[in-house]
């Protein structure tokens, strides 16, 4: 058994409880869509304040796995999850209301999906759901979140304008700000740069590196170069199994499993 109570960064702050350096601990996770098994016995420990990349070919289950972490799969009819997914030592499926879970585990999607509302209202959406109505408080959250998403300077003069008028890259950073505004601990990014041009992608990658200081980032990516550039840890998924998981350098430079070797070298057949 592993020791779950390694002293983490948070312990430095006196009034904070000592937290594990683990964010998610998944044991024996199986997921079924009806009779189809999409995830097979996944065991994975996600480390806090790191970027973890999930890689693998299309249909390998990496996105499905990501969506088990904030229970977005609950929305899929006929979807069933077995096993245990613990967030900070609490069972995310048995002991946490999905609404509460999603406030702690934010998500950014493949296609930027800002609401058809003003930039301000997009970012204030989550805080308002939590019952924050005071304008000064919302103003502050909006500014902080947009600053964290490195887009405040671009948008500060047009907060009342429609978010749909922004470029794709701006929309995606707005969506990151929107996710950060509810103050999550974990940020899930589901191929968040695959619809963006290289410059916007670079922005988001820089941002992820900045965000891991405060948040735990878990990203699904099709782009192996991206995983190599920014991820600390990488998990390789294939046909619903997690084949190999380790430090990014190890996965790319010294993979142990035959299937990983073939995938990262580009010879998949």
């Amino acid at each position, binding site marked *: 058994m592993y020791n779950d109570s390694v002293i983490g960064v948070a312990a430095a702050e006196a009034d904070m409880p000592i937290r594990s350096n683990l964010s998610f601990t998944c044991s024996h996770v199986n997921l079924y869509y009806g009779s189809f098994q999409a995830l097979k016995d996944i065991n994975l420990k996600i480390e806090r304040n790191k970027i973890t990349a999930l890689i693998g070919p299309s249909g390998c289950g990496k996105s499905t796995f990501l969506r088990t972490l904030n229970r977005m799969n609950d929305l899929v009819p006929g979807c069933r999850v077995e096993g245990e997914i613990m967030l900070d030592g609490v069972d995310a499926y048995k002991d946490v209301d999905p*609404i509460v879970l999603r406030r702690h585990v934010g998500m950014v999607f493949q296609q930027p999906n800002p*609401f*058809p509302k003003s930039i301000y209202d997009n970012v204030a*959406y989550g805080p308002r759901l939590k019952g924050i109505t005071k304008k000064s408080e919302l103003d502050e959250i909006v500014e902080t979140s947009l600053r964290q998403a490195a887009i405040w300077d671009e948008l500060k003069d047009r907060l009342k304008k*429609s978010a749909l*008028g922004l470029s794709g890259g701006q929309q995606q950073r707005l969506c990151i700000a929107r996710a950060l505004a509810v103050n999550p601990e974990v940020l899930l990014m589901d191929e968040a740069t695959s619809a963006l041009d290289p410059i916007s992608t670079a922005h988001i990658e820089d941002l992820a590196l900045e965000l891991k200081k405060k948040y735990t980032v878990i990203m699904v990516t099709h782009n192996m170069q991206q995983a190599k550039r920014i991820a600390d840890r990488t998990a390789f998924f294939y046909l619903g199994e997690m084949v190999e998981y380790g430090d990014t350098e190890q996965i790319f430079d010294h993979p142990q499993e035959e299937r990983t070797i073939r995938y990262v070298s580009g010879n998949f057949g």
Partner: protein
Amino acid sequence: MTADMTNSNKDYLRNVDGGLRRAHLFDEIATATFYIVSGAFVLLLIAFTLYVVWGGVQAISPEIFSFSETGIGNQFFNTVYLVFLSLVISVPIGIAAGVYMAEYAPEGRVTNSLRIAIETLSSLPSIVVGLFGYLVFIIMVNTQWNLFSGALAVSILSLPLITTTTYDAFKALPIGWKHGSLALGATHWETIWHVMLPASVGPIMTGIILAAGRGFGEAAALLYTAGMSTDINWSVWDITSPVCPLNPFRPGETLSLQVWASRTEATSASAGDVAAAASAVLMIMVLVFSIGARLLSRHLAKKSEGENA
């Protein structure tokens, strides 16, 4: 020599063969046809409107615009009141039903049978709805013809319009908005209320305009429900009185019924003028309502979407 070779070699780029020439020709014919057809419709609409309004203008007299038995004032008020009542009934129910079908009803059998039921309802002849209303809202309740029954009958006709436009609007929304909201910790209902409904205001308003149009123009469904008479005393404001204008449980002839009656049954000399004026007023009402609803919907959309970038 080489230049010639190159030229002749590139003939395939300059060549337009017979098949392509024909395709271009058809393309132009199709474009012209669509222009002609849509232009003809616009002209027809303008001509019709002008004809009706001109007929009304010629018929104008202070007498006709009075709230007396020979005027159209009372019928004008009844029409507005009836449409208002029917929208009060059908808008909430229609939107709720559309949202239920799009968001809550299990896909497949339930939604399919609901769809069939709604489509059948919307293709019912309005006289059938009128007789149904007469049986259920008048005879079974054991009452006299009244505006509220008329509003209920019109609601049966307008409900499918509002339900289907709401359903279609919800189904057309990008799924990313719904997922984005849920991923932020919103409940399903919060997602519907704060994101999906505001984003559907435009199409839903179209459904409401169609529904109101149904109410303004309806005659057959009102014959035996709202009734063919109207007796209003504008100095009585006790809502329980059968002559109080605001009492929904009094008979209330509407403009379209008045047009129909004046053209078919009336014997008075001014009946033709009354019909012409009532038609013109009806047409202008529908127009004003449509434009007003559009402006309102644009205002609401702007309020919720933020200014254009």
